[in-house]
Each structure stands twice: as structure tokens, then as C-alpha cells.
């Protein structure tokens, strides 16, 4: 263990230590400064990770700063930082006080940073569960709304069952292969049948995290119940980390032949059901929940090809999806400062009375719909490209058609923003922090839509 190893592990140390520091110092400081400190912590962890060369050998036992980690950690850190920025004003109005909130976010971030670094199943599993654990707490944080508590309990119960499935899957893989390490050990040296059963259980567990049909049912409730910034964080980083986990596992010659049909079904059902169920949904958060179900269906579609291109598409899409959903939920959170705006109809006319936030929301919707020149289009393009290249023509066409239908509900929001009038008073002005965060996300969406090449290079580097 050298100093370089320690350097490469610094993001984990910073976030973990940061969580503890915030927890310790929180009571002594103002809520706002705690929040800013957390932003700085997550930001610095991200910057650190971005500028540290990846190492392929484990730095510590059980963890290695892989290229994948170098790609994902800054992404998670960025999204945590933006979430924290969105939470400032939102939490103040909601009375979500105390240092627990930023500390828990940092804890979640710590687990997220740990996940791509894991080199064995145990660390992987614990990181995954810690992420979920952080979200159980975060979702429940809004004590003023009973929905928040309900959502938390539902999420926890489902999550625990899913965790049991995942764990059982890991156990079977372990029992079948006799090793816990991720390096080459998952190769089918052991009992292939037992390993594939284990894979099946793991995928069921991950399907829950990715909210794939039929394990998707918690998603709308939890998105609706959770505080909006938490929903932003949940819908982005938690999903991306689950997808990353699958990627890490899939990198080690999984029994894809057996798993293709289940993955196919999951992807198909998710794309179709997610998009259909969102069509007439009038609650914007639930609508976004169904939309994220569909988007995870697209991700699965790319995963299922089992090709390098597919995995690259997953990473790229993960990054883009993060930006899009952060922008969407961020705008929702920011517009919900004075009153909860749950219904899509509540957003009538906001495009003009709150131009920045309305514009960002509209942009996010167009991006989610996959309309150029937004990043959403590039992401979808890459996904469907890899799917077709991987030979999944039918599924790609189904996905594309359902994506076309999905434009309807995204447009519905845009339509309300700009094409309906409302007599409601204009929303409270945007705090600077939120404007900053929203601008960041929008720039990301637009910039990537026009110049995706740099990100693609990064993604390819991360695939090494």
C-alpha cells in the first residue's frame, strides 16, 4: 500500500470522512453552511477522482480505482453536489432541518464511490445495500408529509426483499464458483447451473434497483413520496450505480445465453409498460417515475446485447440520464419552493412566469423524449445503435416505437409550461444556488447534444 494507492482511494475517504465530519460538526453550524460544506466535499471528491489516473491493481484489499470508477465517481459526485444545491431552499421550506440530510447524502455518495471500486462480491454487495440504505433514510426525511414515511417503509420492505434475492444470488454464485473475488473468478469454472441460478437471482434483485417491470411498482410511490431533490438523486445515481454493478458483473463472462431471455423480457416489459403507464399520468413525479422505468428498459436493452458497444452505451446513457433527470427534478424542486406542485397542470404558464426553471424543465422533458439537439437524443441513439448492432432489431424497434409514444407525456409538461395559462401567482424567485445547478445541468444536456465526442472518448476510456 503506497501513497499513490491512498491517493486513488481519496474520493472514498473524502466522502466517508466527510459524512462523519458533517454529522459531528452539523449541530455546531448553520444548516446552510453545512449544506455548502457538503457540496464542497462532494465536489472535491469528484474533482479528485476526475484527475487521478486509474490503477488496475487493487489499492486496498477489496478495492481498486478502476477506469470505470474514474468515470463514475465524478458523475456521482456531481449529481450529489447538484442534489445538495437543489435541497438548500427546498429543505428550508419543508422543515427538513438538521445535518442528517447532507450527512446521509454523503453517506450514499460514499457507498456509490465504493461500488465501482469493489473487487469482490462482498464489497460490491455492501456498497449496493449501503446506497439503498441511504435512500431509505433520505426518502423518509420529510416528516411533514406522511407520504414520505410511507414511501420510505415501502421502499425499505421491497428493498429488503430485493436485497435478500441479491444476496441469495451472490450466495449461489459463491457456492457454485467457490470464490468471492471479481477478477476472473466469475468465469464459469464451477457449477454453471448454480451460477446461472445465482445470476438470475442477482438480476431479479438488480431489477428492483433499476425498477424494471415487474419489480418496478415501488418507483412511482417512492418518487412521489420522497422530497423532490431526493427523487432526483434516487432516480439518477442510484440507478446508474445499479447499472454499474451489472456492468461490473457482466464484465466477467456471465452465462449470457441463459440470461438473454429474462433480460429481454425485463427490457421489453419495462419499455412498454413504463411508457404506456406514463401517458395519462397527471402527477408529474409519478410520470417521471414511469418514464425512468422506461429509460431503464432502454438501458437493459443495451446491456442485453452483451457487447462492448452496449456497455459503452449504458455508461453514456447513464451520464446523460443523470443530467436529464437532475434537471427535471431540480426544476420541479425549485418550482415547488412555495407550494408542492404535484400535478402537471400545476405547471401551467410557468414557462413564462419562471423562465429559467420552466425552460430547464422543458429542456429536460425534450431531452428525455430524445429530441435533438439535446443529449437525450445522443443517448438514445447510442442505445438503439448498440442494440441494433447487437442484433436486437425487434426489441430496438419496439423500444423506438414506445419512445415515440413517450414523447406525448413529455410534451404534455412542455405544453402546460408554455401553452396553457394560469392565474396562479408566479413562483418565488430562484435562489442562486439552484439557478447555478440548473444551468449546469442544462449546459450539460445541450453541450452533449451538440458535442458528444468528448464524453464518448471518456466512456471508451472507462471501458478499458
Amino acid at each position, binding site marked *: 500500500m503506497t501513497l499513490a494507492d491512498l491517493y486513488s482511494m481519496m474520493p472514498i475517504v473524502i466522502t466517508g470522512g466527510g459524512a462523519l465530519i458533517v454529522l459531528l460538526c452539523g449541530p455546531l453550524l448553520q444548516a446552510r453552511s453545512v449544506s455548502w460544506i457538503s457540496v464542497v466535499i462532494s465536489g472535491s471528491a469528484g474533482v479528485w477522482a476526475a484527475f487521478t489516473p486509474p490503477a488496475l491493481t487493487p489499492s486496498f484489499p477489496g478495492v481498486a480505482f478502476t477506469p470505470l470508477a474514474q468515470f463514475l465517481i465524478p458523475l456521482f459526485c456531481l449529481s450529489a453536489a447538484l442534489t445538495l444545491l437543489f435541497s438548500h431552499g427546498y429543505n428550508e421550506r419543508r422543515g427538513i432541518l438538521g445535518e442528517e440530510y447532507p450527512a446521509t447524502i454523503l453517506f450514499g455518495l460514499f457507498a456509490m464511490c465504493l461500488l465501482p471500486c469493489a473487487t469482490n462480491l462482498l464489497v460490491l454487495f455492501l456498497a449496493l445495500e449501503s446506497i439503498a440504505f441511504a435512500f431509505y433514510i433520505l426518502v423518509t426525511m420529510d416528516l411533514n408529509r406522511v407520504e414520505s414515511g410511507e414511501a420510505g417503509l415501502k421502499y425499505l420492505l421491497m428493498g429488503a426483499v430485493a436485497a435478500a434475492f441479491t444476496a441469495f444470488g451472490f450466495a*449461489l454464485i459463491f457456492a457454485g464458483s467457490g470464490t468471492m473475488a471479481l477478477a476472473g473468478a466469475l468465469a464459469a469454472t464451477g457449477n454453471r447451473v448454480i451460477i446461472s441460478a445465482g445470476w438470475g437471482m442477482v438480476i431479479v434483485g438488480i431489477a428492483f434497483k433499476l425498477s424494471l417491470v415487474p419489480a418496478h411498482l415501488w418507483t412511482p410511490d417512492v418518487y412521489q413520496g420522497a422530497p423532490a431533490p431526493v427523487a432526483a438523486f434516487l432516480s439518477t445515481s442510484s440507478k446508474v450505480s445499479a447499472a454499474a454493478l451489472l456492468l461490473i458483473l457482466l464484465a466477467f463472462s456471465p452465462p449470457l445465453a441463459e440470461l438473454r431471455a429474462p433480460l429481454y423480457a425485463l427490457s421489453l416489459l419495462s419499455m412498454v409498460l413504463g411508457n404506456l403507464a406514463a401517458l395519462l399520468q397527471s402527477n408529474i413525479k409519478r410520470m417521471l417515475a414511469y418514464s425512468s422505468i422506461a429509460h431503464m428498459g432502454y438501458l437493459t436493452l443495451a446491456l442485453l446485447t452483451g457487447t462492448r458497444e452496449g456497455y459503452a452505451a449504458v455508461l453514456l446513457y447513464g451520464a446523460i440520464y443523470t443530467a436529464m433527470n437532475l434537471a427535471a427534478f431540480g426544476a420541479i424542486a425549485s418550482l415547488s419552493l412555495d407550494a408542492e406542485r404535484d400535478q402537471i397542470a400545476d405547471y401551467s404558464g410557468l414557462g413564462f412566469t419562471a423562465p429559467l426553471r420552466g425552460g430547464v424543465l422543458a429542456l429536460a422533458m425534450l431531452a428525455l423524449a430524445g429530441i435533438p439537439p439535446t443529449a437525450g437524443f445522443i443517448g438514445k441513439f447510442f442505445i438503439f445503435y448498440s442494440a441494433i448492432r447487437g442484433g436486437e432489431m425487434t426489441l430496438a424497434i419496439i423500444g423506438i416505437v414506445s419512445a415515440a409514444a413517450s414523447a406525448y407525456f413529455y410534451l404534455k409538461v412542455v405544453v402546460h409550461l408554455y401553452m396553457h395559462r394560469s392565474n396562479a401567482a408566479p413562483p418565488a424567485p430562484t435562489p442562486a444556488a439552484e439557478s447555478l445547478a440548473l444551468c449546469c445541468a442544462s449546459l450539460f444536456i445541450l453541450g452533449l447534444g451538440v458535442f458528444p465526442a468528448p464524453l464518448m472518448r471518456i466512456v471508451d476510456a472507462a471501458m478499458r
Partner: protein
Amino acid sequence: MSVPLSHVLILASVLFAMGLGCVVAWRANVIMMLIGIEIMLNAVMLTFVGGSAHWGIADGQLFALMIMALTSAEVSLALAMVVYLHRRKGSVNTDDFDSMKG
């Protein structure tokens, strides 16, 4: 001692399935659902321990231990939520927690 691994696995799966059945059947009581989850996790532990013994390495047992810790964390948080929600809604029946749907 010559118990085939498959028998351990079968026992584990029986336990796992019973736990799952418990979770599914006892929708009326969160506590019993949590107990079901405990049973499932115990089955997982059994699998790990069996695998560990089968291959002669300690990793599985470690995993089992971690699961135990994880379970206790989970249970404590879950029970805290149950208490909190019981205070708010006066029920431990999960089917009563359906203010969000659609």
C-alpha cells in the same frame, strides 16, 4: 461428514421460500413481513456457510457475518419506521399505507 452441497442448498431454498411466503402472506402485519425477510436472509447465510464449507474458504462465512450486521441495521431502521408510522397512522397493516397509487 458427507452432506452434499445440494442438500444444503435445498434446505436454504426451502427456508428462503418460506421466508418469501411469510412476507407475501402476512401483508397485514409489517412485523411479520420483517420476520419473513429475516428468514430469507438466514437462508442466504446458510448458503454462504455451506459454500464456504464446500470450498474450504472463509469468504462465505464472512459474507454471512456481514449479512447479519446488515440485517440488524435494516431491522432497526425498519422498526423505527414502523414505530414512526404507527404513531402517524395508527396501523401496522401495510395495506393501509396506500395514500399514493396509480
